[in-house]
């Protein structure tokens, strides 16, 4: 008994020593999701990133090689991140042991990562691994501060600024052109995630729709992603219908098939949007993460073609991919 206790004590103090040693590395102060200022290591070599959006950001800053582990979601813009070990699951959350195995200098988590992230944070802290909680990437307003934070940590402020500027430019442009629209000038929008499943005002899509100068017909529903009555959609008679399409590599055919399905639905055939041919399909990849601003551009163009005559979302998307990810635009993301 005594011997064992002694060994454990010895090991514990050894561990403690090694952590104090690493604690001496240079740190940088950043703001976490709860608004607290915390110190994290500067220039970490091995980072485990559970949410997918920060992975995209790190890749965009040209530091993708530092990411050594990921969560479930594979960031759409970083195909190579697919091969990284996955150390968390949607339903259970981070796997602390697997994370420790990767010997990270820093773990980036998300407030919405799994059901019990708090326990994981405690355990990682106990193991001496610094953890930074980032705000859920589903909130569009948090994109820019996140980029800034990551720039700081990775010592890539110049690149971070450039990246942030690009995004800010277009988001600002949309806001600038739509902010003075009167209520009458805002078309009504019915957004569909899945057959008759829509979104209310507590979802990020609400931000897209209102930023693009539209009114979400289901904004006031009591459930975040409610299934709504088809006859209500028919009666509300939205000006525009936008539906999300999921899938790894979407082609124009699949998107057009999705559109045909909506247009031919008995409940929607009579709706203004269908009659005016204002039914659009957008890849879900453009509705989350770092590509969200591109999605907003499509929304804006569809809602107010006159105001955004000079804007070609596809071209901007292409530029965005080339400039920050060194990729070509492949497949279809929006239709028509």
């Amino acid at each position, binding site marked *: 008994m005594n011997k064992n206790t002694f060994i454990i004590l010895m090991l514990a103090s050894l561990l403690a020593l090694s952590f104090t040693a690493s604690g001496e590395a240079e740190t940088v102060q950043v703001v976490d999701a709860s608004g607290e200022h915390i110190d994290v290591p500067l220039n970490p070599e091995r980072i485990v990133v559970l949410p997918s959006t920060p992975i995209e950001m790190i890749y965009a800053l040209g530091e993708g090689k530092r990411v050594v582990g990921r969560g479930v979601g594979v960031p759409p813009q970083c195909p190579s991140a697919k091969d990284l070990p996955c150390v968390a699951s949607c339903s259970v959350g981070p796997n602390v042991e697997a994370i420790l195995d990767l010997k990270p200098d820093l773990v980036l988590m998300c407030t919405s990562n799994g059901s019990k992230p708090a326990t994981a944070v405690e355990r990682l802290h106990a193991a001496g691994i610094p953890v930074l909680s980032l705000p859920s990437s589903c909130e569009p307003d948090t994109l820019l501060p996140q980029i800034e934070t990551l720039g700081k940590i990775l010592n890539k402020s110049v690149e971070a600024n450039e990246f942030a500027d690009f995004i800010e430019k277009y988001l600002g442009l949309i806001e600038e052109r739509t902010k003075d629209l009167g209520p009458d000038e805002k078309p009504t929008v019915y957004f569909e995630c899945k057959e008759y499943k829509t979104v209310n005002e507590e979802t990020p899509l609400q931000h897209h729709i209102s930023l693009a100068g539209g009114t979400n017909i289901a904004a006031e529903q009591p459930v975040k992603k409610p299934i709504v009555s088809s006859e209500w959609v028919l009666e509300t008679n939205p000006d525009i219908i936008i539906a999300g399409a*999921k899938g790894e590599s979407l082609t124009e055919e699949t998107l057009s098939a999705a559109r045909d399905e909506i247009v031919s639905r008995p409940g929607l055939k009579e709706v203004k949007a269908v009659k005016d041919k204002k039914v659009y399909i957008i890849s879900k990849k453009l509705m989350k993460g770092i590509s969200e601003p591109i999605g907003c551009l499509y929304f804006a163009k569809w809602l107010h073609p006159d105001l955004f005559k000079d804007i070609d979302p596809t071209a901007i998307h292409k530029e965005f991919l080339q400039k920050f990810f060194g990729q070509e635009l492949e497949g279809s993301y929006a239709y028509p």
Partner: protein
Amino acid sequence: MPIHEDDEMMHAEEVYTNASWRKTILTLVLFLIVAALGLFAISIGASSLGMSESIRAIMAVFLPMDDVSHFAEVVVFQLRLPRILLAIITGVSLGVAGAVMQGVLRNPLVSPFTLGLSSGAACGAALAIVLGVGILGTGQYIIMINAFFFSLLTMVVVYAISRIRGASIETLILAGVAMGYLFSAVISLLQYASGNEQLREIVFWLMGGLYAAKIENVMILIPIVVILTMILMRYSWDLNAMGAGEEVASSLGINVKQVRMACLFLSTVLTASVIAFTGVIGFIGLVSPHICRLLIGSDHRYLIPWSGLTGALLLLASDTISRTMISPTEIPVGVVTSFLGVPFFLYLLVRRKRRWWQ
């Protein structure tokens, strides 16, 4: 309310004939109640289309009427009608399948749920969602077909296992329960391993619902359900006899194993076809036969149609509440079914007032 003392003085023939008449009439009454509820359901909904307008739109089919708006026609015939028909047809098939399965296995706890059929279907759907092609249009059919065949597969496996040990009922039920757990484990695994998007879709399927009703689907289901129900009703006598035990049934000239296999497979096809379209809708298959046994007795000649109609009534009422209570947002129909059906069922259990048809 008739007085029971009269029974003593009447001859058994009269007692029986009167009871049969009452049961037949009550079956017709129940059918009319379902039809009336259907009419009521078709006239209410999330849009402002009121009852009178809806009824006029329906009447316009039979009588010449010019002032029915196009909107009313679309809402009533293209949106509400398929859904109400789907609710009825789903309720009927779950109720009938539940009654037949309980009768053929002589066990009051049996339902498509306990035999693992729902879990099988859900597992098939989840596999399609996670591994299959996930495009809006075509993906839907992959899920349905998968769900249907996994449900059938479950029954084949369960039956094959029970055949190894002489097709005893206990083995069959336990094999079903075990398969149910296995499939639930696979579903959990798929949920665990899948991304947010797929996870949500699986949960969605597990909740079930009728909102996606399409007239084409309903038209496929109606003949399936009507024909299978009629075939199963032809087994009423065999099911009654099997209630007295396998040996008695066998001595009454019934090929017990063959009847059991036929009934199980027919009712499996019946449930599998509807849950492929609606997702998992539990509870009705279990509780509808029980409600009917308390109300109409165990004679399968009446129990099967009653259980079907009660299932229809329960599901139609639940779905109507689910689409109108906080409209236009819909409440998952399974939630309403349980909130509505469980208290009613418990009330009947506690009162245990039998033979009210006499």
